[in-house]
């Protein structure tokens, strides 16, 4: 078989096909698991915020309302797909797809546990930035193509917001890159093992702060949910969307939250890295499983933080948001880079 395939498509062809199949299986597994997590992130959000707001959250569909996400998905899937008469139809179709695909593609460079990553590329963080910037196109195009004033305002707000906060977020991670000496997320996690508690959040406390604030703005969550500010712009850029196109935006937003939480866990909170006395004393396979769970706990703690903030804070105004981005976060992130560089040179000098 191997010889036959090699004979048809050249030497090493069989190995290539096997690799492709393995990657496809990995992609399928990651997408399926990630979407399941996204679905249950909505359930968990509704439960958490429900209890914070003296409500109960979903509890009718299935035990403890556990099947609510599926019920919602089915409902959205069978809803009428309304397209405004004056919409720019090709762009209107395309926008949610761009948004959702950009969010899903980011998953490909995230290492979930030691050695498990779909694409172990050496510019992992840059790739994540690229994809989250691409998601902004989905928002802008949806706002533009809907031919609705509310959607248009939401799209414009989002464009300026994501561009401003993209810079702050990128700069906040420069400190991490400097400490780790790599853009590869796996290397970054491994580099954190030598630091106190195995996290970059302590030496990079300034960067972590900037990152957290920027992450909220990037994913359009309170207190920075201006593009979809319900009380001002009805629903912002997806005002005119319904049915499954709306669901794509919804899923994209939650995937985005999950990815931001994952980046926070990987770059600042130590990712899957377990303390050495555990990894030394348990079998390798168990350590992997524990690492995965350790990583997920961090991701979900960060998600909980998202929900907590949403239940607590009011919304910023558009100009205040811009002021925070340009006048506070970017200078802080720049200062953090300078500080990190100086400390690194100083430490090197001592050694």
């Amino acid at each position: 078989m191997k010889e036959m395939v090699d004979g048809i498509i050249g030497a090493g062809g069989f190995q290539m096909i096997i690799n492709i199949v393995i990657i496809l299986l990995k992609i399928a597994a990651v997408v399926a698991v990630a979407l399941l997590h996204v679905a249950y992130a909505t359930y968990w959000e509704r439960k958490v915020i429900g209890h914070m707001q003296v409500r109960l959250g979903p509890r009718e569909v299935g035990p403890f309302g556990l099947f609510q996400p599926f019920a919602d998905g089915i409902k959205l899937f069978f809803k009428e797909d309304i397209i405004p008469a004056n919409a720019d139809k090709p762009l209107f179709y395309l926008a949610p797809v761009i948004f959702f695909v950009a969010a899903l593609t980011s998953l490909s460079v995230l290492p979930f546990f030691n050695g498990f990553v779909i694409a172990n590329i050496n510019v992992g963080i840059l790739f994540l930035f690229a994809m989250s910037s691409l998601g902004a196109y989905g928002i802008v195009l949806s706002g533009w193509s809907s031919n609705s004033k509310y959607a248009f305002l939401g799209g414009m707000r989002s464009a300026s917001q994501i561009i401003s906060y993209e810079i702050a977020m990128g700069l906040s991670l420069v400190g991490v890159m400097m400490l780790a000496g790599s853009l590869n997320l796996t290397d970054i996690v491994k580099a954190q093992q030598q630091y106190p508690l195995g996290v970059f959040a302590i030496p990079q406390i300034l960067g972590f702060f900037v990152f957290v604030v920027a992450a909220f703005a990037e994913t359009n969550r309170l207190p920075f949910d201006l593009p979809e500010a319900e009380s001002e712009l009805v629903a912002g850029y997806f005002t005119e969307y319904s049915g499954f196109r709306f669901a794509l935006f919804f899923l994209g937003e939650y995937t985005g939250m999950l990815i931001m939480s994952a980046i926070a866990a990987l770059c600042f909170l130590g990712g899957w890295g377990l303390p050495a006395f555990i990894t030394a004393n348990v079998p390798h396979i168990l350590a992997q499983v524990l690492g995965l769970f350790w990583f997920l706990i961090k991701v979900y703690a960060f998600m909980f933080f998202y929900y907590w903030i949403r239940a607590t804070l009011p919304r910023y105004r558009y100009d205040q948001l811009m002021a925070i981005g340009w006048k506070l976060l970017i200078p802080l992130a720049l200062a953090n880079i300078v500080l990190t560089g100086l400390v690194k040179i100083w430490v090197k000098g001592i050694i």
Partner: protein
Amino acid sequence: MDKEMEEIERTFETKELTVSLGPQHPATHGVLRLVLHLDGETVVKCTPYVGYLHRGVEKLGENRTYFAALPLSDRLDYISSMNNNVGYVNAVEKLFGIEAPERARYIRTIVAEMGRISSHIIWLGTHVLDIGATTPFLHAMAQRERLLDLFEELCGARLTVSYPRVGGVRNDISQEFLDDLYQFVLEFPSHMDDYETLVTENRIWKDRTVGIGVISAEEAVNWGLTGGTLRGSGVDYDVRKYFPYDAYDKVDFEVPVGRNGDCYDRYLVRVGEMRQANRIMKQCIENLPAGPVMSDAPKLTLPPKDLVLKDMEHLIHQFILITKGPTIPEGEVYVGTEVPKGELGFYFVSDGTGKPYRMRVRAPSFVHASVLPRLSEGGLIADVIANIGTIDIVLGECDR
């Protein structure tokens, strides 16, 4: 070639974006419609359009007897119907020249303050929700639910109560109701603390409201503002304090007054009012006098139902008062009362028949809606939303 150059050199044109905010919009508190002219995010011109909920309450009132028109006042500001009823019966009593007995006046004061708290709770919840904080809204609604349950216990209705009557109140209050209400009164300040913890000193909340929608004291008076919207600008005017009706001259309360006339001060004033309302209720419950709850004026007040069914004189009174209406002197009367939104005035012209010749309602929401352009122009879209919340309007009252 020239044409191409012309195309390139032509200045880039911008034009104002006109957005119709409402009448169906999550933040316009009903069916208010604002046409906003926007330059980017800045509001250049703001024009309110009202009348989507016009039901002709004033005209309807002219075709009903003074007793039958009372439920119309429920439908004015439907979230504080008790206060409207109290205003209505006070005006009609002044026209009739009768006074409610002491106990009824205390009861009216209690229920009016309950109405004030339940209205202000909705205002607090929705105003904060418009600015983006969702949690205080739901916590506030939980307490409002308790008040509505108390209304139900009192008179059977939750929202449109029609509980006060010309010459008193419909029925005496039970000890059970008083106990439940007193329990609420004792617990309420701690709930207020909860809401304020989330909002009052919140940095984002202050950023959004301090210095927004500023109106000076003089200008506020000239616009005809009343209630919390006026007091936020530093004018110490409260009908309850300066033209007391019911039992307000017998209770001790303060009138919270702001200083800067911005959204934040109006917020502080209303929050202070809720605490004062609670104080008034507490004093009224503690000092509630005994006695009848309807005044002894058989020609001008409806007789008790149980006597109507037993007694011929009362039956005749009931029949005459319901069909023809009371016989009263000609004249006109204006009575203003302090409802949660501001000063609600009822103006009656009587031609001596059982129905008013003219019934006019001075609706604070209408006046406050008219000041919206003054507050909003020059600000951002988000400030318009903050201003709508802070002037606290209800369109049922505005459109009448």
